[in-house]
């Protein structure tokens, strides 16, 4: 029973079909949907979700969760702005330091999760408060609170979010590379394999000599980096550095991961699914907007997809286990009957 492996290939295929169907449907309503150039260009709109959900997949595969991703985004954005504008760092240095902040935040998350036995939801809830508070504090103290933000970035920077190589936006190329790297990590490295092992059976992983703490910390570092990248990207997109950029990111990011096929309880998942699901959800928002449903309202569909996916998966897993038990029972009673027949 080649269950899990082929499930993901199946699910990816289904997602692709759904994506294609979605684009076609919206295309019927608004022609620009059928324009490839348009489609590619509009990915900038939800690039930040993709940047954050790809690494989030890693954490969820281990059976954990990270709800602080939004606050790390805001923190990275503000630090980027502060460094560039007030400390007059060159852009690239601000970029690097902001990434470093994301890495550090992820490291703190990972350290806490790996070394205390406290569950990751509670811990990242706590760090979310902390990181958000730091971001807000920093923003406020330099007068960039609320809608103001720090602005005035040069075009060389904002080009990240608007530039393209031909028809393909830079950011999209980047995220494809990122996706590919994470795919490689997950499927072809010991670290990636360890993520699955920990998610399926953490104790067995320990007994097998896997460096569980190190792996868990790494997974959170990746989400921290992804959040920082997303924060910097959004800063370029809005041409403004703000502490609240990540406010509404958690739900779409989680939905991308879960709808993409990754099990919320860990042990199974694929970045390819997250990638396609994020595209699906991103275009969904745009398509709804094209038919007059504002982004405020499109949250409803995302929320429903999130809940429905988890419920349906739960029911499916339960019935699969029931079926396994029934099969095992049949097999066993056949043996018993044969034995009695002798």
């Amino acid at each position, binding site marked *: 029973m080649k269950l899990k492996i082929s499930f993901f290939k199946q699910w990816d295929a289904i997602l692709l079909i759904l994506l294609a169907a979605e684009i076609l449907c919206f295309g019927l309503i608004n022609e620009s949907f059928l324009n490839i150039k348009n489609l590619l260009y509009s990915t900038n709109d939800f690039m930040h979700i993709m940047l954050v959900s790809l690494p989030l997949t890693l954490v969820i595969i281990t059976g954990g969760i990270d709800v602080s991703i939004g606050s790390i985004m805001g923190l990275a954005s503000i630090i980027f702005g502060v460094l560039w504008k007030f400390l007059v760092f060159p852009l690239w240095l601000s970029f690097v330091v902001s990434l470093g902040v994301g890495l550090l935040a992820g490291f703190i998350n990972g350290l806490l999760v790996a070394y205390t036995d406290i569950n990751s939801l509670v811990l990242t809830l706590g760090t979310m408060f902390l990181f958000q508070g730091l971001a807000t504090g920093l923003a406020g103290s330099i007068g960039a609170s609320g809608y103001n933000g720090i602005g005035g970035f040069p075009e060389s920077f904002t080009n990240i979010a608007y530039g393209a190589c031909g028809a393909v936006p830079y950011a999209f190329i980047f995220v494809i590379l990122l996706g590919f790297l994470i795919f490689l990590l997950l499927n072809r490295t010991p670290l990636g394999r360890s993520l699955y092992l920990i998610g399926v059976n953490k104790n067995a992983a320990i007994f097998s000599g896997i460096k569980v703490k190190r792996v868990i910390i790494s997974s959170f570092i990746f989400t921290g980096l992804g959040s920082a990248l997303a924060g910097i990207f959004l800063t370029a997109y809005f041409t403004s550095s703000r502490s609240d950029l990540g406010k509404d990111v958690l739900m779409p990011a989680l939905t991308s991961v879960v709808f993409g096929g990754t099990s919320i309880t860990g042990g199974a998942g694929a970045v390819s699914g997250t990638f396609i699901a994020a595209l699906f959800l991103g275009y969904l928002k745009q398509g709804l907007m094209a038919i007059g449903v504002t982004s405020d309202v499109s949250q409803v569909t995302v929320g429903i997809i999130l809940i429905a996916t988890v419920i349906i998966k739960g029911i499916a897993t339960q019935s699969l286990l029931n079926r396994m038990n029934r099969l095992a029972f049949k097999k*066993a009673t056949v043996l018993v009957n044969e034995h009695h027949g002798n």
Partner: protein
Amino acid sequence: MSLDLGKQTNTKGQLASLFSIWKFFGGIPVLKGVDIDIVAGEVHALLGGNGSGKSTLMKILSGAYQKDSGNIIVNGQSVNFPDPQTAHSYGIYLVPQEPKIFPNMTVFDNIICGMKVKESAFSERVEAYARDLGFEGSIMDNAYSLSIANQQLLEIIRGLVRDVRILILDEPTSTLAFKEVSALFERIKILTKRGIGVFFISHRINEIFEISDRISVLRDGNIVFTKDTRNCTAQEAIKAMLPALDDDESTEISSAKLEAKAKVTADKSEAILRIEHLSGYGFSDVSFSVYEGEVLGLAGVVGAGRTELAHAVIGLDPFSRGKVVFKGVELKNRSPLKCLEVGLGYVPEDRYLHGIFLDLPNKYTITAAVLSQISKPLISKKKEENLAREFIKNLNIKANSADQISRTLSGGNQQKVVLAKILSANPSLVILDEPTRGVDAKARLDIYKLIRELQKKGTSIILISSDLQEIIQESSRILVMHAGRIAAEFKSSNFDLEKITSAAFGLGVSI
């Protein structure tokens, strides 16, 4: 899903009967058609090793688990218990093996939680039980600071204070001292005089023979026999817990045995492993050596401390003290990883909890300990596949392919997958902890053959087993552990089943 069960009802005096109970967990059978009943006023002991299914059976009776097939008859009616609440309404209550305490509530609230009674009326009664059983402290204190013995007493009082017709006690004495056990047994006798039936799960033979009226032995999901205690001997009971081989297999094994034994006694060389005054949770002051090429059997009954010792050796017990010297080097700050790196492997007692990655392909488990070796730096699919195939062939693992999901394999094959995982790291010494538990006869044979092959290669083995016949058959030397200490040592010339059994149960003297 059920078989034709014929006429099933309660006979006179029976409080409950269970017929043909089957239970699977994720396709893995834990109970395979168990029949058992309980009569009013009796203490019915349930004896069996780890993984025999005794707890599962009682959890089904008490509504905590759902049976997959079979029938439960209470008062002549076929009943179904979808949850513990329903079972309670029929007067059936289970005192669990591990205390489930609410640390933020008082002891009293803990005890009467879920009961539909007026609290004020009950406090005297609860207090009386508490004093009677030797519970220390006030029942109005918060429960978080209770000692483990008091926690167990709390669980027992929960059972006593409820209006039950059938009381199930799952290993109630595991942390109690002599005085408390005696008080408990007095209470049980009072209950049975009132016509209450008591199921008493234990692996402690002496307690079972002291308190019970009937004994049922459970092994690997089947009831081996049910007998009146007075018509049963301890020897019978112990023997019933051990796995049985049919004649063909026995001969095959004995012939194989002859071949290996001779070789082992010839090589008596360096001590590859030296344990010096190792103490930890569940064992104290253990010292012994393992010599290169030998199979050291570590015999004992459940609770003797062997698995705890093994866990401490590979570094999973943070509180252990003492020395572990491997290949002449002291191992400090041990961890499973470090041990594997120096060539010390451990195959866990509970493969489901600690060994296998059930919902992943076989090859994932097989390669889990050597991931860095098959990568440079990307995992080589080819190496992974080859490694997995090699072990599948060598260990005779019955799987369709290396990609087959482990959950769908039989228990014996799953055990082999875990073995493969540890062996892939090429250990010089392997600790096998109950390697043939829950394993079918053919696979067991394969594992014995494997032990001999390993010996031929020069690998040293520590064999932990509760199957004393198996230990005698496979070992070059036997150590017996009892209550956390080494009780006796037997050289191969002196292997004597009865003496070893006595030592395992804490009687008799080492030779």
